[in-house]
């Protein structure tokens, strides 16, 4: 799952740059608001989860690790 998400972000959102698991993804020049919405759409489609607006938080989306942990929690629920 970690790898699936990483591949999506690297290929589609940060132009083939390699990202590390705990690198902040949302600083200026990295992923923008459009990118956040694309990540949400990607996760919903790939993992069959529904992401409520109240979950759009740093603790869930700030880094690759945070996203993976969040998805694991949602898919287990």
């Amino acid at each position, binding site marked *: 799952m970690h790898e699936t998400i990483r591949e999506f972000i690297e290929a589609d959102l940060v132009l083939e740059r390699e990202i590390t698991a705990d690198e*902040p*993804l*949302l*600083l*200026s*020049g*990295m*992923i*923008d*608001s*459009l*990118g*956040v*919405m*694309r990540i949400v*759409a990607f996760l919903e489609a790939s993992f069959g989860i529904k992401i409520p*607006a*109240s*979950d*759009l*938080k*740093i*603790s869930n*989306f*700030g880094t690759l690790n945070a996203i993976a942990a969040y998805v694991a929690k949602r898919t287990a629920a």
Partner: protein
Amino acid sequence: MIQPTFPALLHTPLGLAADATPDKPAFRFDGASLTYSELADTSSRMARTLVEAGVRRGDRVALFLDRSFQATIALFGILRAGAAYVPIDPGASQQRVREILDLSGARCLVTTEAKRAALPGGFPASMSAVIGLSKPLEAEVDVISWEEALSSPDLGARAQVLSETDLAYIMFTSGSTGTPKGIMHTHASGMSYACMAANLYGLRADDRFSNACGLHFDMSTLDYFCSTLVGASTTIIPDPWLKLPASLAELIEAERLTVWYSVPLALLQLVEFGDLGSRDLSALRIVLYGGEVFVPKHLETLRRLLPDALIGNVYGPAETNQCTWFNVPEGWNADRGPVPIGAACPNADLLVIGEDDADVAPGETGELAVRAPTMMQGYWRQPELNRTAFLERAGAGGETQRYYRTGDIVIERPDGNLDFLGRRDRMVKSRGFRVELDEVERAIAGLPMVSEAAAFTVALREGVTVIRGAAILNPDETIGARDLAAAVARLLPHFARPDRIELLPEFPRTGSGKIDRRALAEQLSGEAQVSGVVGNA
């Protein structure tokens, strides 16, 4: 309000507040505070470091940092050294960084290790040092670390003699066409704006400002100079928070922010995804937005969610700071149509002029021109542009009155408020008719199923230009592009109808969060050229 001082430089209030309220947080970031005395002390040491590195009155010092305490210390340090700060978008490429350094002829650059990969391989000859790196650069330029910079003695007797007429900052436009334009502001024009805003909105020492935009964006001057002028605190909101509305709402509540100023995007996301109903935002007493039109139905929601707050639509190109505003009244609703940009701010003289540069008759459309002490000096090293950017008129005594031509088309309502109709350069000819693209955009955005919309032109092939729309639908909305185009077609004359409307999950945005219509047009024109199909609108 701080007592009048002479000269009133943009960093003067910092010193006064550091004497009056040394332990008060001047800035807050990620839960930590930088007090007035700490900021006065560190910025003084930074200023000394810059002076020792060769910076003199009138020099430019570039600032390439994510918003942070470091960026704040650098900003005030540069001013205290007598230089003008030149903020660079922290997301800028190597090429862009080099371009701004070249254009501004910067003496120094203040940055940090985290930005090393974005630094250019070489620097212009004007540069004497890069401040903020802990290891040397391959390029032939001195490097001074943050630790060294802040352990220097304070400015002391090396303080520069300055005048309010000295340049304080130069903000470069994104320059999507041609060379970026450097908007030059003096201490006087910056301070005039800070004073005007403090008086107009009744800003106070007990306010807690937000800083939601980059230092390269003119709105930030309210958060840094007006807040220090009134001796208030400013919470710097890091970029990631602006992209995640639930976290942003949490932060606004936790910091008990009282003053908000941003482009509509952050507020729009808050309204849509911020789960505001469950948040206590009662401390928020002033919400200002500008730079773009706020989609009326979302503004209506915001007005309802914050019944006691002053909500202001603020207008003014970066060249003028702010020159008009409209106080969005309680109970305002979307049926009342677009929000006016309002009436002149104190100290601003407005003209609405026609193609012949003469005043139009009352109630007729024309270009807005502004004369105010908050206005820029001109564009950096662009004599040609400075000849055309201003309209000069003779006053009663033959004195020259200089008005900045905004390029914005407005019309005055009977009640004296101005309506913004669009950019002069967003007027297009379609099948021989004059079409205002912003009007097309408003028609799409006004539909109940649409969250945001954009209109632009794309070249289908050489010489054939069509109007095209793009829309972001509301969550859970399922209408198809064809039906949406049909709904829009009912609202517009035939020549103004977009040939089709693309549905997108989000729009490309500029660094400041505005819709990037140029990028959008490029993104979608590629598709148009491939298919060459004109849909039925």
